[in-house]
């Protein structure tokens, strides 16, 4: 039933035992170099075309962003922000979409076994057959990426073209990107290439150029090279240090076992109390006393 041998899955949602993970496949990553991105939306077009997704033709909202936000049909959108700093203008354009975290909040939050899987190559993918549309993943994700479809109540997000990567191709957006702002390969190579790009940027006066590979989520398989890595929020609200919300950690963390054990214990306490104390029975003397009392009250 699974075209990808289940051995290639590192982690599976709502599954408390480890998935079979004997094989160590190449850990891939997509590097998005904002300094090369011309905001042309080729990646959006390629994503829509490859995944056979189509959006309703919307309206213009007074900006270049179309559609305005990620949706169940648009798994990646460009976010345009105009930033003016000491006299000169910068147009920072960021390709928004799933970051494929190493510790995915969506997977941690998802209650349905197998609905979200993390392959051994680092891709976090939604297996829509198991999705129950509960929006837990939306709450788990530190980047607010998953979207629930109105049509089928399933969660959707960028799959890093797991189907293409599974047969050895690059994702559709990486292949289409005209200026190689999107680069795909092993995570190690991408980090190395990012280093070269950062040196080039530093040479052009961007002292704070850096790699965005946030530790808060264990590093991501979609990384950015930012001209201003010291202020990611300039890039349409890219979180400075994203991590799974502590509330989600509590909710999905120790609350779980404690909860079940609590219920279990309450039931057990009751059982053993009954076994030791025996039932609290009404004795014949109580019935007699009740009669006397009734006589007393009714006839006094």
């Amino acid at each position, binding site marked *: 039933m699974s075209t990808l041998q289940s051995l290639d899955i590192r982690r599976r949602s709502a599954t408390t035992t480890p998935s079979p993970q004997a094989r160590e496949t190449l850990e891939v990553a997509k590097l998005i170099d904002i300094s090369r*991105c011309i905001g042309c939306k080729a990646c959006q077009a390629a994503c829509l075309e490859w995944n056979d997704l189509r959006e309703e033709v919307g309206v213009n909202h007074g900006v270049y962003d179309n559609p305005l936000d990620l949706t169940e049909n648009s798994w990646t959108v460009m976010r345009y922000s105009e930033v003016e700093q000491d006299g000169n203008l910068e147009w920072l354009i960021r390709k928004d979409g799933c970051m494929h975290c190493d510790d995915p909040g969506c997977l941690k939050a998802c209650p349905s076994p197998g609905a979200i899987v993390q392959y051994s190559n680092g891709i976090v993918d939604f297996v829509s057959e198991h999705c129950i549309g509960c929006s837990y993943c939306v709450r788990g994700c530190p980047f607010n990426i998953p979207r629930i479809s109105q049509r089928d109540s399933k969660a959707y997000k960028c799959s890093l073209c797991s189907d293409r990567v599974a047969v050895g191709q690059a994702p559709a957006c990486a292949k289409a990107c005209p200026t190689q702002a999107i680069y795909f390969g092993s995570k190690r190579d991408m980090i190395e290439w990012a280093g070269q790009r950062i040196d080039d940027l530093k040479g052009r006066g961007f002292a704070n150029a850096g790699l965005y590979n946030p530790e808060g989520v264990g590093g991501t398989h979609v990384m950015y090279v930012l001209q201003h890595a010291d202020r990611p929020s300039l890039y349409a609200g890219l979180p400075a240090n994203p991590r799974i919300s502590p509330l989600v950690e509590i909710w999905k963390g120790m609350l779980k076992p404690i909860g079940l054990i609590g219920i279990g214990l309450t039931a057990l306490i009751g059982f053993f109390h009954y076994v030791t104390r025996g039932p609290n029975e009404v004795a014949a003397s109580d019935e007699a006393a009740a009669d006397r009392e009734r006589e007393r009250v009714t006839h006094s």
Partner: protein
Amino acid sequence: MTNSWTDIRNTDLVLIMGGNAAEAHPCGFKWVTEAKHHNRAKLVVVDPRFTRSAAVADFYCPIRAGTDIAFLGGVIKYLLDNNKIQAEYVKAYTNATFIVREGYGFQDGLFTGYKREDRDYDRATWEYEFDEQGMAKVDETMEHPRSVFQLMKQHYARYTPEMVERICGSPRDKFLRVCEMIASTSAPDKAMTSMYALGWTQHSKGSQNIRTMAMIQLLLGNMGVAGGGMNALRGHSNIQGLTDLGLMSNLIPGYLTLPTDRDRDLDTYMGTKGFRPIRPGQTSFWQNYKKFFVSFAKSMYGSNATAENSWAYDWLPKLDVQYDVLRAFERMHQGQMNGYICQGFNPLMSFPNRAKIRTALSKLKFLVVMDPLQTETARFWENHGEYNEIDPASVRTEVFELPTTCFAEDEGSLTNSSRTLQWHWPGQAPPAEARTDIDIMADLYIRIRDKYRRDGGKFPDAIQNLRWPYLVPHAPKPEEIAKEINGYAIEDVKDAQGNVVVAAGRQMPSFALLTDDGKTSAGCWIYTGCYTEAGNMMARRDNSDPSGLGIYQNWAFSWPANRRILYNRASADRQGRPWNARRRLIEWNGRAWTGVDVPDYGPAVNPSANVGPFIMNPEGVGRLWVRGLMRDGPFPEHYEPFEAPVENALHPAVGPNPVARVFRGDMEVFGNARDFPYVATTYRLTEHFHYWSKHVRINAILQPEMFIEMGEELAREKGIRAGDWVRVYSNRGYVKAKAVVTKRMMPLRMGNRTVHQIGIPIHWGFTGATRKGFGANMLTPYVGDANIETPEFKAFLVNVEKITVQA
């Protein structure tokens, strides 16, 4: 383009001005990104808007639309004043040293010889001074007061940085920073590439915009070198091919010109095509004009074109005036046109002043539209409310809409901006009853020819004697036509020693072997070599690039003669040694020219013969001063657009281009700065392709609805917020659109005035998947460039107001 897309990787500085490469040619722009990373190249963008090219640029400078010559004139002055030119290159390869005759001059905005009533020049005074042998005089020291160098220095002395700031609104410091960066490429081992497109061509002085940059590239020694050149980023996949093949009023394929009423017979016609060299020993390649003309005539009329009937000279129509689209629609508007055929194209959306275009179309007797998409032009007679107000009953035109195949369903070659002809194959059958353009045209021709055979009629000879060698007459094969374009030997072609070089019936390997005695046929001489005996060179897919300079000799075929970088002789100094050791194109090895590209030169011409690298020019060198070849002046001069917010600061008496042709009725509808205070410019977005991609769902999703772009300061003044509906109106019409309020449209401080600019993308109409929209051409003025009649879409005047629109 003089160079090629992949050559851009070799550059050290990219100037994107008069174009928006990142948005209009994203995959070509990749090579700018490559140059930035591998060569530490810098990208400079000068544009009225902070475009997506500027988003990844190292430096951006704003400019008022329509003032490019003022800016570039300022750059020339900067280069000359600071002696930042490649002196040896300028002296050897440009006409800087040539002496101009007495009587030439420039005063108060006009060159000598202006005839006010004709709006034209008598260009006799715009000529070199010749010696007795008819050779132009030169002064190697360039000190002579009438040398081109001194005249140029004097002409651009007026373009001071202050004047540039006053005219263009570009802040002085930013302008000087751009000059500095440009000047850095005057070093022999540095190159700058100019990437421009309609931002420069769509002005009433478009050709001169480009000439100014060509002068700068010549002064810096960037012509003919790797990573240099004048790179026009053509807008369409085969606009280059159609122009090469002469599909214009005054052209014959291969940039020959159609005879005019003055050319009574072949000899008179050929008399004007002498192109005798005017410097000793120059190639002046156009001397072979007759070989190309006769070979063309043979491809048109085959055996019916003989020496006796002057190679069927009279079967070609002669021109009284040039019938460009503006004149065509003017005639239509005056009811002088009965029929019109649109093979693709969407004139209702593409030509200026749509109201005039719609009225013109409705005066036709019949209109034929051949297009893979349902275009607005085919539906100009339908009433679409505000988007297309017309009463169908009043339109008497018979309209035919013929379905054609699109690129995916037909076979043939396209010529891209780098002059590369590439073959493509169909991936599916045409939809429903669509047919290829070839089949439709062949069907039309055969029907008309047979009608003339049956019923006779006016002058059927040319039609009936047209060479139609196709195996299946009503369905010519693309290969057959490609071979015909390449040309073949009708009889054995022999060399001087008499041995056969090309046997009869064989494909011609090169245009150098074409003859003017009727032995050879070639549909388009510059394409010869595209389909030779070795097969379809346009289908070659070997993408090896041994030199690493992005030449790709064996990928498809580049005209002329598979040369990838034009004028590449200029990449080597007088002795034949490359200026730039790291990027060697061709060099003289003592016996012949060798290198990575086909030499744009006689292969064995010794450099000591001082044959200039610009082999097409009678001077043999690049022209800083163009004699009488341009209608509006041998030196480019700043003229304001026909609708300008300010008067001409250099010469108030002469505002707009004095020789641009304006038809009666159009002059009166130019708006003035009082009623229309804001400069408007039109342009494309990267998500859309003119009026095609509104039919494409994915692109409609990416940019669904018409908008205009305005600066934050202007928006505050008008109380407009991002996303509001606004009405932008000129003296000719109005459009309604959403407002994109942005920091990227900067207000220009010009002296004590502030000029605001408004940007209007062009992509929406009343057919297709996007929201219905008005067309930018409802606003644009009906005037074209003085030399080539390209409409002035890029700079005109509008006003804007906030409106409320019911959803």
